[in-house]
């Protein structure tokens, strides 16, 4: 029975990572990208926990009188604790950057935001932005802008 649970756990851990990484690579919505990041991190953390898990062992807490008991490897658990804290910090920072991007460009679409950034950088550098003739082949065309600047738009 335990091996079945273990299998489900492993498949789940790898599956979560794959779903998360795929989501980060394939999504164009800034907020979804952050969510995909959270999912991927959960998968990686679960895999680390599984690396040190034993079905026949107790939680790694040292109590007087129980020191001879077999215990789960505590090292991965300590590492996962660290990884979770780092992950939460990074996600918070990512969300704050999403808010800033939304304030400046009034969009949550990565393609639009990226195009605006490239245009702004080209303009600041005094370079004519490369258009169809010179631009790299294979770039997906931008969707027509559905919403322009609304309330809560750029502050500057």
């Amino acid at each position, binding site marked *: 029975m335990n091996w079945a649970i273990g299998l489900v756990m492993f498949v789940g851990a790898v599956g979560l*990572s794959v779903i*998360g*990484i795929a989501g*980060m*690579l394939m999504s164009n919505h*800034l907020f979804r*990208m952050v969510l995909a*990041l959270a999912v*991927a*991190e959960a*998968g*990686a*953390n679960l*895999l*680390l926990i*599984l*690396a*040190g898990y034993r079905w026949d062992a107790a939680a790694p807490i040292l109590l007087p009188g129980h020191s001879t008991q077999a215990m789960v*490897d505590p*090292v*991965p658990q300590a*590492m996962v604790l*660290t*990884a979770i804290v*780092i992950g939460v*910090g*990074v996600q918070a*920072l*990512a969300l704050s*950057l*999403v808010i*800033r*991007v939304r304030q*400046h*460009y009034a969009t949550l679409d*990565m393609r639009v*935001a*990226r195009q*605006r*950034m*490239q245009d*702004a*950088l*080209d303009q*600041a*550098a*005094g*370079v004519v932005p490369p258009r169809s003739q010179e631009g790299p082949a294979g770039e997906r065309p931008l969707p027509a802008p559905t919403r322009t600047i609304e309330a809560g738009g*750029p502050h500057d």
Partner: protein
Amino acid sequence: MTDVTLAVVLPLLGAFLLPLTAHRGLHWLGMLLGPALLALAALLLFATWTAFESPYAIALGGFAPPLGITFYVDLLGLLFALAVPLTSLLLWPGGSDEAAIRQQSLTLLLAAALTGMALSGDLFNLYVFYELAAVASYGLAASSATGPAFVAAFRFLLISALGSVVTLLGIALIYFKTGTLNLAHLATLSERLADPQGLAAFAMLLIGFGVKAELFPVNAWVPEVYAATGKRVAALLAGLASKLAVLAVVRILLLVFPHDEARQLLLLLGTLGVLSGELAAWQARDVTRMLAWSSIGQLGVVLVAFSLPGKAGLIAGVTVAMHHLVVKSALFLLADRWGGAVDRLKGAATASPLGAALFVLFALSLLGLPPLPGFWSKYLVLSGLAEAGSGMQHLALGVILLGTVIEGGYLLRIITRLYAAPERDIVPPAHRFPNLFASGLLALLLVAGAILIDPLWQGLNTLAASATDTQVYVQTVLGGKGITR
């Protein structure tokens, strides 16, 4: 004996104290605190360097390895650690307003984390310091607080966080197969990782640490971030942060994955980096992004150099890395006022003759003109590749030579504009004095490197001899003779 851990602790302390001084109105203290702490850290590391006899390890908190976390102090680690406070001091963002204070405390945080990366002897600890450095650099990337900077920082964060997840998966894989994360302990168990799963773990770590090292598939953030932030931040990230990420990769490669397949993988990705970086730099039409792409190409050369086996590879790698640290930092400092379109630079030499002369010096060294250190670094890489002699290495040799030709093309394009007659009497702006001063210091360093080539060669030989000897590392950390608590 001086305690090297202070070189990590002091900037970290400063990073969190600095914002407090701004709130209390102690601006003069804030102005002094950061540079003073960095100078102190540099002094500490320098004292350790001069008193260095043999490598030793520090068991943090008194817990013995392999369970406890260790710092490993050898010449290679000390060289890169020493570069951290010195470069941060040189690229220190001045000022005393709130935004400047924030940027300064992020710089201190970055310095602390990078020093930790140079000294850490534990894979997970390395990962934590890497994450700390990454978070500091997201903040620095967004520090100019413009729309493009926020988008660039967000994309940087996403790519880097993706790399972190992949690294974590790689670490989990290594822990599955070996049950340890201490680098010395892993070195004794490296045969267990000499299979496809081990290679996959190395590839995962490479992708993760490679984000900062501007490794080929995960470097899309580079030109955007460098173009959207201040040039001092770009210099800090391109010059310093990338080198420490490379050092982390090198440590892992030397100790944990001393297999040919791992070296081949690094060689392949480095070669692709050279090719893609130089070609993209040729396409770029403004100086900043040209330098950004060219730094991807240069770091490709660094990774190719480190993929060479043995002492020769390490010497070549350290030389190229340190040369790139000096030259690219200086070029970004000079690009602070000249970062725009290449065509706008016409006549810049008349406005700022010293700046133009420095630019030419650094550009020629980057190309590898013989008396300058750039020549020796490239020569070491190329001769190492020629000696190693398999098909892949010869291909890499050809690509690096081709890259040098392309590099010559675009750098000379800038240089000819600098000395062209100004158009309609529009003269490009002259440099701010601090930038000119800092790049002047770096130029002195470069010239000193060209003159002192003999003692440098001796030093590099002893450095590489101890760094490539895995047995010394294992004996020092696990044998218990070199441990201090």
